[in-house]
């Protein structure tokens, strides 16, 4: 089979997984289903990064989103419900106006995307990017990199301070 054809089939397969599981996240009644559909959305976005030649970002996406943020969200789901309460339903409100706004946003974006003539300077070849990203972080982006690391530390300390119980004097 043709290599380009296989690439296209795989791309549309992963794009369908991404968009379909994102729809499950939004429209499912059960919180647990939403959380696990979010897992497939993150995997789908990581595979799209692979198609875009961003190998470092695909690995980062898997480690941080799937390993970190999704687990954190599941903790949030479990800790904010009573134990043995298996009825983890979530309700919606303003469903029809939300649906209309969603459709308006999507149609506007799709119209803009389709009607713009994007400048094409050719694709970057599929090379490993990790070494180049590391050099950029240590040379051009060293100040934002350090600020981001301090920011992450502050955010985590702040999160621990917020959830601390204060009643034990």
């Amino acid at each position, binding site marked *: 089979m043709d290599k380009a054809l296989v690439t296209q089939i795989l791309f549309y397969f992963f794009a369908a997984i991404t968009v379909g599981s994102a729809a499950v996240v939004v429209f499912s009644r059960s*919180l647990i289903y939403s959380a696990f559909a979010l897992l497939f959305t993150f995997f789908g976005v990581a595979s799209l990064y692979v198609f875009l030649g961003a190998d470092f970002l695909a690995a980062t996406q898997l480690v941080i989103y799937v390993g*970190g943020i999704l687990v954190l969200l599941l903790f949030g789901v479990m800790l904010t419900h009573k134990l043995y309460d298996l009825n983890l339903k979530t309700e*919606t409100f303003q469903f029809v106006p939300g649906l209309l706004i969603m459709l308006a*946003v999507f149609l506007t974006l799709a119209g803009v995307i389709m009607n713009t003539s994007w*400048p094409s300077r050719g694709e*970057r070849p599929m090379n490993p990017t990790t070494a180049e*990203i590391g050099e950029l*972080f240590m040379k051009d982006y060293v100040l934002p990199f350090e600020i981001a690391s301090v920011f992450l530390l502050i955010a985590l300390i702040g999160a621990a301070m917020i959830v601390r119980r204060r009643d034990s004097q």
Partner: protein
Amino acid sequence: MIPLTHYLIVSACLFSFGIMAVLTRKNAVNVLMGIELILNSANLNLVAFSKFSSANLNGQIFAVFVIIIAAAEAAVALAIVLSMYRIVKTVNLDQADTLKG
């Protein structure tokens, strides 16, 4: 190969689903999932533009920063949701209306 617009359409789908989740869900954790969808769609846009319209990797660097912000945001937001559950005994956003006049 796959054109740029297809990536952008996938990203637009993710963005509008995230908007939908933020607008209509009652559960605070589910709203957070919508925000994660929005951040992911922005990241997908950055990486796609980085691939198709520039020779350097600045778009991917920006995507790394977006991931860092998303991790910090998820941690702080979950902490706020947990303390809100402790104080108000609910995570439904329409019932936590103490500040309503």
